[in-house]
């Protein structure tokens, strides 16, 4: 329901910027669109943020050339205390393909505006760092998300690129390049450190090595197949991304998902959170030498993925989400397994915490390491676990409830410390809250359908969907097309917001602490790069 504050904000906006507003529509209960006549988004953004404390969630583009004659940028706003999203749609200047950049005042959208530049060939005027980020330097001048760029395009072979990093100069200063090939089984990303002895002076990081053209592929696949693509955006968040995608389709098709399915989705989303949080706690311990703790954490995680296999047929919950619900129901023995596994996990987790607490050397390594100051976290638009450890009080489950979350009460842990210790503490608290949510959800007696049939999905419907993945805020925005296909699918993984935080967090730390700092954020390469 639109809160008073949100409707007051929208009304205020219309009055103040009436000349600029071409049209307004409430697409659905929690999604209002305001279409502008021109590209001038800056005064509106300043007004919404300044007067109403609104937060700019994401910005993305769409090629509406053949239909409306222009590209559009979409600016998604939210306001604390309201479940509403306000989407301001601004046309990109048709002759020059330019739009005003917000990045100088809002570093949070730095990469997002550059992504628009790289994939659509538009220009963010006034961007403080307009270099390519989402396509590497050796790509030819192509704009893959434009409608006139076919998915099947075969580009000529590339030359190896030589990306120029900013030099860091001084007596005794040298560069340590790490990656893109890493020592562990992780995806490629490059970290270029400037160090003087052990302490890190400056970090430049480079992502998008695994750019696969996912958003373009979404425009080709029929929707029921695209669900599997959504699951593969970030493999450890397959259920969260899959849910975000299905929710968007269900909104567009005005489908009501049965309660039993919503409760099951909630349980599975929390199981995904548990698996990853306990795995990360173990990994943080191992990065500072406490391998025994990691052995136990891995054992706990293994028990959970075994449960996942029993509940969904897959250790990482793949193939379970579908448009209209979930693909299978649970019999009594599966429900018993679920209850027993969660009880056993809860008790073992207490033991693990007690083990970690007993190690003062571990605590010493983690405290004051990798501090991300709350003011920097806020300016950079950091979300999720990394944000909450640095005072950013956001959680989609509470702020824009989805699935069955509005039925269960739970705490959202927020700290100001911003170091590795606090990022671990957020995970510990969230594990305990997740156990509580799962218990409350399984206590509900689930009868009825776990899935409803999917109607023909109407064309040209827009829908926004948000999920609090275990890393943070996931956003999917779609525009449906004819014949059960999509015209546009924009994905914002929380990692897209959070990578720049690493630059701030490592400053002044020793290079040997980089692995644990990186692990304490645990960001997705694939989710960012798409």
């Amino acid at each position, binding site marked *: 329901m639109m809160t008073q504050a949100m409707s007051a904000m929208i009304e205020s906006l219309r009055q103040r910027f009436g000349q600029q507003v071409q049209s307004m529509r409430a697409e659905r209960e929690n999604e209002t669109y305001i279409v502008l006549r021109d590209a001038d988004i800056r005064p509106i953004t300043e007004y919404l943020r300044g007067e109403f404390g609104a937060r700019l969630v994401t910005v993305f583009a769409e090629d509406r050339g053949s239909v409306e004659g222009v590209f559009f940028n979409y600016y998604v706003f939210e306001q604390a205390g309201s479940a509403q999203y306000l989407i301001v749609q601004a046309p990109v200047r048709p002759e020059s393909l330019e739009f005003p950049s917000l990045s100088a005042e809002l570093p949070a959208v730095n990469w997002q505006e550059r992504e628009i530049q790289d994939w659509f060939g538009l220009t963010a005027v006034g961007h403080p760092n307009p270099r390519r980020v989402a396509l590497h330097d050796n790509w030819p001048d192509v704009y893959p998300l434009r409608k006139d760029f076919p998915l099947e395009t075969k580009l000529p072979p590339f030359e190896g690129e030589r990306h120029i990093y900013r030099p860091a100069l001084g007596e005794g200063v040298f560069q340590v390049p790490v990656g893109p090939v890493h020592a562990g089984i992780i995806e490629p990303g490059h970290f270029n450190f400037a160090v003087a002895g052990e302490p890190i002076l400056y970090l430049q990081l480079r992502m998008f090595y695994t750019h696969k053209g996912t958003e373009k592929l979404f425009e080709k696949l029929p929707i029921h197949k695209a669900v*599997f*693509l959504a699951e593969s955006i970030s493999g450890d968040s397959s259920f969260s991304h899959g849910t975000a995608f299905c929710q968007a389709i269900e909104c567009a098709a005005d489908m009501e998902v049965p309660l039993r399915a919503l409760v099951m989705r909630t349980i599975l989303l929390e199981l995904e959170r548990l698996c990853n949080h306990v795995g990360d706690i173990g990994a943080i311990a191992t990065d500072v030498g406490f391998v025994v703790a990691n052995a136990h954490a891995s054992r706990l995680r293994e028990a959970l993925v*075994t449960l996942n*296999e029993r*509940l*969904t047929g*897959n250790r990482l919950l793949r*193939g379970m989400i579908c448009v209209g619900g979930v693909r299978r129901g649970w019999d009594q023995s599966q429900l018993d397994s679920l209850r027993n596994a969660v009880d056993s996990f809860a008790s073992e987790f207490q033991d693990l915490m007690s083990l970690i607490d007993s190690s003062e050397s571990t605590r010493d390594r983690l405290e004051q390491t990798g501090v991300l100051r709350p003011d920097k976290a806020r300016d950079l638009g950091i979300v999720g676990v990394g944000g909450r450890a640095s005072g950013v009080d956001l959680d989609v489950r509470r702020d824009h409830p989805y699935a069955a979350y509005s039925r269960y009460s739970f705490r959202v842990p927020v700290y100001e410390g911003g170091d590795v210790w606090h990022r671990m503490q957020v995970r510990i608290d969230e594990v305990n809250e997740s156990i509580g949510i799962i218990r409350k959800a399984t206590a509900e007696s689930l009868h009825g359908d776990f899935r409803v049939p999917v109607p023909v999905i109407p064309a040209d419907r827009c829908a926004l969907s948000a999920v609090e993945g275990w890393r943070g805020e996931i956003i999917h925005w779609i525009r449906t097309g004819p014949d059960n296909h999509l015209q546009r699918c924009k994905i914002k993984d929380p990692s897209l917001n959070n990578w720049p935080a690493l630059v701030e967090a490592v400053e002044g730390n020793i290079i040997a602490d980089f692995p644990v700092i990186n692990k304490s954020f645990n960001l997705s390469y694939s989710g960012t790069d798409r």
Partner: protein
Amino acid sequence: MFKILQKTLKTGTVTVNYPADPAEISQHFRGRPNFDFEKWKDARPAAEVCPTGAISLTDKGDSRTVTVDYGLCIFCGLCAEASSDLAVRITQAIWFLPRNTSSMPTSHTAD
């Protein structure tokens, strides 16, 4: 130190003696789908629904060739859901890695 030892002793051994003992795989696990080509009346629904195109059909005159490429299979199980007879069965089979993906496809031609 004592806490660590205490916990280790209490936990005991959790690893299983695979392959001497069988792997503990749930009956709900989605492993390799098995195709009974003789019994399969109509492969078209499965081919249509397969998200990756692992199941493909070619018709030549009166005969139809169904090709299953396990290299493309993502074990989603939609093929079994789409086939009304039991020609497609999801098994719990996990070990069937070939030397390279080109030795994956299985074809069957029927009239």
